């Protein structure tokens, strides 16, 4: 029988959650026994090759591309898990949310103290995805099935979560593993 497939992605995140996935140390060998990795930065697979059982999402949606990727995950995975503060609340990137986008971009590209931009151009190449007005947590865009909080969630949290899911048990994190930082 085929092993179930797992996909991961980093949206508006810092890859810290992916580091934490790797931080499960030697248990990654057990994980590889349990699942095959599909689209993921871990194996550098850029596109889905198959339908997946589980998608792990790091980061919230800050750009149109984030939304696009998130939607493709929703369409390709049976179960989506928001991993980490950014996916769950928007996290640090969402600290821009109480500042209008125009102000954010001016600070970043025009008026910030370390900016050198004599032509005062805002980058607007069509290759660069457009920003959303706010950074959105994943569950405000698509349906999310489970949440693994933390910044990043500890390797134990990720492990517990995955093992529970893959063995069909309910996800019930013990107190010590529910953390927002």
């Amino acid at each position: 029988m085929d092993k179930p497939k797992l996909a991961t992605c980093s949206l508006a995140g810092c890859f810290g959650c992916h580091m934490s996935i790797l931080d499960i140390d030697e248990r990654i060998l057990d994980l590889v026994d349990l699942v095959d990795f599909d689209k993921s930065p871990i194996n550098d697979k850029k596109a889905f090759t198959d339908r997946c059982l589980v998608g792990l999402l790091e980061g919230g949606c800050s750009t149109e591309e984030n939304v696009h990727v998130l939607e493709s995950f929703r369409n390709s995975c049976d179960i989506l898990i928001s991993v980490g503060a950014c996916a769950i609340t928007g996290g640090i990137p969402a600290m821009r949310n109480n500042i209008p986008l125009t102000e954010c971009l001016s600070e970043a590209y025009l008026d910030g103290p370390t900016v050198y931009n004599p032509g005062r151009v805002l980058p607007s190449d069509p290759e660069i995805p457009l920003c959303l007005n706010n950074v959105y947590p994943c569950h405000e865009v698509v349906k999310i099935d489970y949440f693994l909080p933390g910044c990043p969630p500890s390797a134990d949290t990720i492990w517990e979560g995955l093992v529970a899911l893959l063995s069909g048990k309910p996800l019930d994190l013990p107190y010590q593993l529910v953390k927002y930082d």
Partner: protein
Amino acid sequence: MNPEAKAFMIGVCREYGSDRTRLMDIVRRIQEQERHVSLEAMELIAEELGIESVEVRSLVSFYSFFSEKPQGKIVIRVCNDVVDLMQGGAEVSRAFEAALGILVGQTTADGKFTLEHTPCIGMCDQAPAILVNHVVCTRLSAAQVPRMVEILKRTGDPQALVTQYGGGNNEDERIRSMVQNSIRREGEVLLAPREAEAGLRQAVAMQPEDVVRSIKDAGLRGCGGAGFPTGMKWEFTRKAAGDRKFLICNADEGEPGTFKDRVLLTEKFDLLCEGMAVAGYAIGAQEGIIYLRGEYAYLQAFLESILARRRKEGLLGTEILGQKGFDFDIRIQMGGGAYICGEESALISSCEGLRGDPKTRPPFPAQKGYLGCPTSVNNVETLCTVACILERGADAYRALGTSQSAGTKLLSVSGDCEWPGIYEFPFGVSLHEILQECGATDAQAVLVGGPSGTFVDPAQFNRTICFSDLSTGGAVVVFGPHRNLLRIAGEYLDFFIEESCGYCTPCRAGTVLMKQRFEEVLAGRGNQSDLDYLVELGRTIKSTSRCGLGQTACNPVLTTIANFRPLYSALQKAPDDNHKASFDIYGALRDHEALAGRTSEIFPHTN
């Protein structure tokens, strides 16, 4: 600050004995004279009262009639209640904006005019209405506005806008108002002819305990909305330990669509005073307070003069009706534009010179109320009824209405009907009967009890006004078939958000979340799961809020979801388990698209 202003402010503070509990009155006087309460004024008041200036600011910032920034000499407050908006209130606002060259919320550069919105001012039967300082103007149309502004500019006197009086005591020289009473149905109790002071005479011939028993026997329940048995409340207050007790008359009448207390104050003020004296006698209170909403300031001079007359006649003051030991007097406490101050414990806070935060209960006001003393808070209509009951006897009163809900009820009827106004019906009257009598033939919905009550659909028009079915403080608002009921529900929800005191989590934060999702649904970005979200959130707010405001704030949404489901279904997106209907990608991209001067390639759209 100029020395004159300073001397004035110090004078005001001292006039009230530099008493911290009179901060409402002090701030109100300074606001009226100086047009605002500046930081310097706050410092000065604080010093005079021996408190911190941030405490003064705490109060000033709570009440919408007080302001920290200078207001114009003439403040025009356009009522933006739902009924006013239905009858052209928005056009009136815009006409004022045009005529004054400012937006709502602004003051003209010459400091002459400020334009504001204000929630229901108790004139729904003659909407659209506005307040110009204390002067009420009713039945306005946008076409009148330029001329009104011209008169105000020329005379500087809001009273100059009143060219025709509204009848009854509105013509009295101490009122001189265009407000109309619109009494449409005089029932058997409150609006029936009676013998002046007969109730009070009867009361003093009885023992106070027996007066309380009479009110209990009559089955009178509070007319302010909560329907608590009046006799029981009096008994608690009477029996509570303490020598100093208070009777407070709740004349805050803030529930949108309610205006019956205004008519009683105008036409039946002696009856109210009589009822208050009876209540004072019954519970052993020597001090009475009428908490009069700021919007009714135009009645203040009239009411004060009647109080003065009654003192002269021996109907107030010491040894009332010559009865030894029966001392009772009344003062008027003006409110400052805050609906929450109609809630009895918030009202007490306000009387004490505090923010209008409701108090923690227990202890209840009957045990520890105004200044920590046992206090009974009763509605205007309740207290008027008391005098009538004493006059005719408990049995006669009890014989009216239904077995569970004795007597009659004043209803304030407004909205899409031929004859808006005041109706006195016996309890048990059905909505059908009311609609027929007020001339509403094609109502799509009736809001009973104001926005904190229930939106009722035509299939339920056989329901009746009484405590076991549709319980109400008296507001009945009729909506014709052409009205957008869900928009209206949203406007009422805004009202509650605006008027929340902000003390407790669910009402302060939850109602905002409710409005946010409700708007998504209205914009067509919602499906079944969003309705579930609204119902669940509404349940939490209702169940966990600290006072009646939060407990009922979601009713406009919850009762329309319950009784007008098809209106929501028509807006709903097809259920989609995977995508959140409320997420608006195009809205989220709008800012950057505008900045970048291009549209999204990933999420293409044409406009």
